[in-house]
């Protein structure tokens, strides 16, 4: 199963990240802040297989929420519910319960999935820049919305790349292929592409699992700078990452939400023995 070696946490902690355990200021017992995503008793099925069992949790506005748990525990499945990416897989369904974003049930028939996905951006586990230039990668989402003004596009490209801490590295080669970048740069390009369409929420599905420690540190730094403007939900295998980056952490096991609490409590003072066993590396 996943490696849970705790040692690298100390050496890899990025400078700008908050100390891992004292967690972010202002996060009391979840849910405390303004609720942005409200998940209420959700059961989710892949065909006949139930992947999520009665999940209820509140994700706070402009906070970083981490989902942790062993492989197959349903954390990615839940994440992909928030922008309805699961719709793409045949035979999937939310059998009961509701997911509300800003009070709107996103599975209501009058919800426009396209509009939802503009508001809820996503960064994937495997960085997937399109085989186009860096510039075209960033402008892809805007062009879909009919934005064709060159000055406006230039502006968004610079803003997004600066936002993704990539501008200085690529400003001289905006028109070369996005696939010519290193793995970490590619992942930051994908983040830049996601923020170019000004989403409210950014979902990150194990964004660092394919990156080396240095690139991981950069992405984590970026997450810290993004938390001011966006609500971020991050799925991770790396518990140190959850500890370093997030305000709240939800621990999933076998499709069930075991514990959801401020990150500090999950790691220092877990309520459930299963959480305690997982975060201390005794299983998973």
């Amino acid at each position: 199963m996943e490696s849970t070696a705790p040692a690298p946490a100390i050496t890899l902690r990025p400078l700008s990240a908050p100390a891992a355990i004292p967690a972010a200021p202002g996060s009391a017992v979840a849910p405390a802040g303004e609720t942005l995503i409200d998940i209420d008793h959700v059961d989710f099925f892949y065909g006949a297989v139930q992947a999520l069992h009665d999940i209820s949790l509140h994700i706070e506005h402009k906070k970083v929420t981490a989902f942790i748990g062993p492989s197959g525990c349903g954390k990615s499945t839940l994440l992909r519910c928030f922008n309805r990416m699961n719709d793409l897989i045949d035979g999937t369904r939310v059998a009961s319960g509701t997911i509300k974003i800003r009070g709107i049930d996103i599975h209501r028939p009058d919800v426009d999935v396209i509009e939802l996905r503009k508001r809820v951006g996503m960064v994937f586990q495997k960085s997937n820049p399109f085989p186009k230039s860096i510039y075209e990668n960033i402008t892809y989402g805007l062009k879909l919305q009919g934005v064709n003004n060159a000055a406006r596009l230039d502006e968004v490209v610079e803003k997004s790349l600066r936002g993704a801490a990539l501008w200085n590295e690529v400003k001289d080669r905006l028109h070369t292929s996005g696939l010519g970048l290193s793995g970490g740069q590619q992942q930051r390009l994908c983040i830049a592409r996601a923020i170019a369409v000004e989403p409210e929420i950014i979902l990150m599905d194990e964004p660092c699992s394919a990156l080396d420690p240095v690139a991981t540190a950069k992405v984590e730094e970026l997450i810290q700078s993004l938390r001011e403007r966006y609500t971020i939900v991050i799925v991770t295998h790396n518990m140190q990452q959850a500890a370093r980056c997030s305000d709240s952490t939800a621990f999933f096991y076998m499709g069930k939400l075991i514990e959801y609490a401020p990150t500090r409590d999950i790691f220092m003072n877990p309520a459930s023995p299963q959480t305690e066993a997982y975060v201390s590396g005794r299983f998973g």
Partner: protein
Amino acid sequence: MADPTHHFQARPSALRRSESAIFWLFRGATYLVLLCGAVVFLNIFIKGLSTVFQTKAPFVNTTFLTEAPESLYVFEWQGKKMEMGDKEFRVFKERNPAAANVKSESYVYCAGGIFPCIVGTVLLVIGSMTIALTLGVCAAVYLNEYARDGTFIRFVRLAILNLAGVPSIVFGLFGYGMFVIFFGWNTSLLAGWFTLAFMVLPVVITASEESLKAVPKGFREGSLALGATKWQTIRKNVLPYALPGILTSSILGIARVAGETAPIMFTAASVLRTQLPWQGLTRWTDFFFQGVMALPYHIYVVSAKIPQNEYTERVQYGTAFVFLFIVALTAAASIVLRTRLRNRYKW
């Protein structure tokens, strides 16, 4: 070598002997295939060369490449053996009244050239590939991107696979019954286009589907996650990357469309057309409803439909040579196009 009886000493054994026998069996089979191919190509190349090229300037037999077929007249004139095409012979007789009653042997289609056949084949390829690619890519996109896997889709796939195995003469009969008789298009370019298009459709669909499958799922997900509709995703982020592969498949299609005789035999091919397809049209729509000459059918006609002699062989091999050259040229053009596109979209 000091110790001849070390652990790894090679000893003759049945295993070692069979190993080398098997190696030579495979190598021999490969060389045999190569030899057959070389013999066929060299035969056509050498025999066709003398028809298509000549020793005098401009070195290319322009008559053969730019004129329509005509009859060849062979006669003796002032002790010399003369060979002349129909038109040339008439002019000759006018100039030399004494030749008016000269005894001559005539051989049909053995003089002139094959220009109308080249034109016809090119028209057939362009039209049928346009139809096949349009229909085929649409079907492949539907099957691969939209359709949900189920019994019906599996049945459709099976039908497509089976279609690929249908002999081309059956397509010819189908086209004859459907387009020539039922639709009343007669023997026409249009009937030939559709017949050939249906024949290559399975190749185009299967290969297009393969190239669509080769586009990573991440590109689709990434695009959809940015708020693209399905069609926007396919148009901007899937099809452009699949295009090189689709073009590769159409190379195979072009070779087949250009090469098949059976499907056009009843549907599109004429034995002889004196006018080029764009000549003598009363209405522009007549263009689509006329038969055309075609290279493979011309080879068939000059090889099987007329008495064989030393003169027919020249036309046969000359036509085959030009035919192979054209197919090779189209293939080369498609490969260049594909390489260009592939360099533009690499992942």
